[in-house]
């Protein structure tokens, strides 16, 4: 007997619990004039999307393929509109793929959006039965599970209230309770755990872990990257409906974080370029100081010397590249490009880092470091090099300045750029030294999983 014959058979059957093959989903954008034409094509060809003009077709998913093994937790990440929810709906059988195939072994339980398939006008109790019937359970099978479902949801007497009176947390709790108590072989969960309270989220996670331990399969879509990384065995990163990266959670999540930070960095550079060009244009006329969103000036000073630009270089010396996201502990250099029209004998370069909320993190300058200025005329690049910048994860803003030894500014530029720091574990504050936990004595614990 070949594998193909045993597939879909009893518990002994091996192979993936879920197979997604080249799934593409095209939505149509409808214009009223199209309606009859598309109706004709639907009736004659059995599709509403074939032969659609490209400008009327929106590709939500393009050629997505993956397999999920029994007992595996599979995560899907990506920005808004990347196709995550569409993928889940296709896997759940709510939407039919425009091309490709989805094959799931066993019962698929889905919890997609709030109140997955609840009828608002009727009671939670009746909805449980309807939901169960949709999943293919008989009335008696639901009877048997009913008390467990209510207990898990924590709804108590509310179970007999119409669902429309539920809070969003209650919706999710009931939806999740039904989804996990109907013995799904493949459980699809979309970004819903965030709605319930902390205690319920923990209960859900414990239940998910139990299901995984029992050999069930999880497909998990979330914006909570930490949760995805903790929970999932493999992660797929969707970008504009296309699979961008698939693999080990840490690698994929880090790559995704990096791309998001790069995108933010690029936006920041563009904003900077815009403000630079605005400044140059403004230099002709009356000089209006640029201001930040709180009305504070972004730049001041006599301009006897100027900070032309400032940037962040990340990486070891020789390999450093300009970027604005880094892992805590990476080597960096803050580089200031400066210009002095007339020769100056008195100059100090300074850099300061602060948080977006205004907390000063660190600042230093060449005077504090003990440099004695001799002369500066024309152009120069000045770099503040840190072999390891150990900042806590978060976003930081940088000020760069050139001023006189007595502190009077030539050119002080606030928020000249921002950068983002990521790190493996979390902490409070801004400082993130290398660290580990040790203990002796009568205690027992499980160290964090090796990452």
């Amino acid at each position: 007997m070949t594998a193909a014959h045993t597939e879909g058979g009893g518990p002994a059957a091996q192979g993936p619990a879920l197979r997604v093959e080249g799934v593409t989903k095209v939505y149509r954008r409808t214009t009223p004039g199209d309606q009859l034409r598309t109706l004709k094509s639907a009736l004659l060809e059995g599709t509403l999307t074939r032969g659609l003009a490209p400008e009327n077709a929106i590709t939500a998913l393009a050629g997505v393929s993956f397999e999920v093994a029994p007992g595996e937790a599979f995560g899907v990440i990506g920005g808004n509109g990347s196709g995550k929810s569409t993928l889940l709906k296709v896997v759940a059988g709510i939407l039919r793929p425009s091309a490709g195939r989805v094959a799931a072994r066993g019962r698929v339980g889905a919890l997609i959006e709030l109140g997955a398939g609840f009828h608002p006008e009727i009671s939670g109790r009746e909805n449980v039965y309807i939901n169960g019937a949709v999943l293919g359970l008989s009335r008696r099978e639901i009877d048997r599970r009913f008390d467990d479902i209510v207990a898990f949801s924590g709804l108590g007497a509310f179970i007999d209230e119409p669902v429309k009176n539920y809070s969003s947390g209650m919706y999710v709790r009931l939806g999740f309770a039904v989804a996990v108590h109907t013995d799904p072989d493949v459980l699809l969960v979309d970004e819903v755990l965030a709605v319930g309270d902390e205690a319920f989220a923990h209960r859900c996670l414990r239940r998910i872990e139990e299901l995984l331990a029992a050999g069930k399969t999880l497909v998990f879509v979330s914006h909570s990257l930490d949760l995805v990384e903790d929970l999932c065995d493999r992660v797929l990163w969707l970008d504009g409906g296309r699979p961008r990266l698939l693999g080990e959670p840490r690698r994929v999540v880090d790559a995704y974080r990096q791309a998001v930070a790069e995108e933010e960095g690029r936006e920041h550079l563009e904003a900077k370029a815009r403000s630079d060009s605005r400044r140059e244009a403004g230099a002709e006329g009356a000089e209006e100081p640029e201001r930040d969103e709180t009305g504070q000036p972004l730049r001041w000073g006599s301009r006897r010397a100027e900070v032309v630009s400032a940037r962040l270089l990340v990486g070891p010396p020789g390999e450093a590249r300009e970027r604005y996201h880094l892992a805590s502990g990476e080597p960096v250099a803050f580089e200031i490009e400066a210009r002095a029209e007339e020769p100056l004998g008195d100059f100090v370069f300074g850099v300061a880092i602060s948080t977006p909320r205004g907390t000063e993190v660190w600042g230093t300058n060449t005077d504090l470091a003990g440099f004695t200025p001799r002369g500066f005329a024309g152009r120069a690049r000045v770099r503040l090099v840190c072999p390891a910048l150990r900042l806590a994860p978060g976003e930081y803003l940088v000020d760069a300045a050139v001023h006189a030894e007595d502190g009077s500014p030539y050119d002080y530029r606030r928020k000249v750029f921002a950068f983002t720091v990521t790190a493996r574990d979390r902490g409070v504050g801004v400082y993130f030294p290398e660290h580990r936990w040790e203990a002796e004595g009568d205690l027992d614990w499980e160290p964090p999983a090796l990452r």
Partner: protein
Amino acid sequence: MLDTAVELARFRSLLATLTARELKARYRGSVLGFFWSLLNPLLLLAVYGFVFGYILNPRLGDVEPYAVFLVTGLFPWIWFSGSLLEGAGSLLANAGLIRKAAFPAEVLPAVSVASHLVHFLLALPIVAGALVVGRYLGHPVGGWGALLLPAVVLLQLPLVAGLALGLAALAAHFKDVRDILSNLLTLLFFSTPIIYPLEAVPEWMRSAVRVNPLTPFTLAYQDTLFRGVVPEASLWLQMALVSLVGWAAGSWLFGRLKETVVEAV
């Protein structure tokens, strides 16, 4: 067209649950709940009975008493038209269910048909009462033919279900369908021999009324209930044919449009 039937059979427990819910919602909350659902057909009956049987009272032929004749055709019609009107809107009305869960969409129009069928069956005692009163007044109404009523209902069921499915799928894509439908139903009502016997139609128009797909069913209801006789074989044949075609067309349409219903609602 078999696919849809198989799906409906697979989800019969869901169908039953939803139908029971629908009925409960209708009858809940008041002692008179059940009677409210009879009020609408009774009101129609009273109005038509008064207007056509008393005010106009033209050449109606041998349909005495008129109210009894009317009720035997009117109640099945209410089942038919109610099922189609509600069924056509059923996918739109339950968009939340089919968009968020792998909900078998075919169940929803079927629930409309089933719940209206139950209303029809629950209204049958009125028909029976009318027949008893008719007999008591000395008219030769009713008879053993009434035993064949279930057969007529079962024969009509595929027609009603098929049309409800097809209309539901169409209405999900084209919102105008429901408006068009209510007008078409008005037209259909008056071209079906419900408020008048077929014999009262002028000769030259009779064939037009005969091609109306609902005519054989209405005649069969009048035969089994009003006259209490067994409908002719040709009538059975016509009903079977119409029902088969109606189911085939409706479920085919539904199958074709099913894929995009979720996106359309």
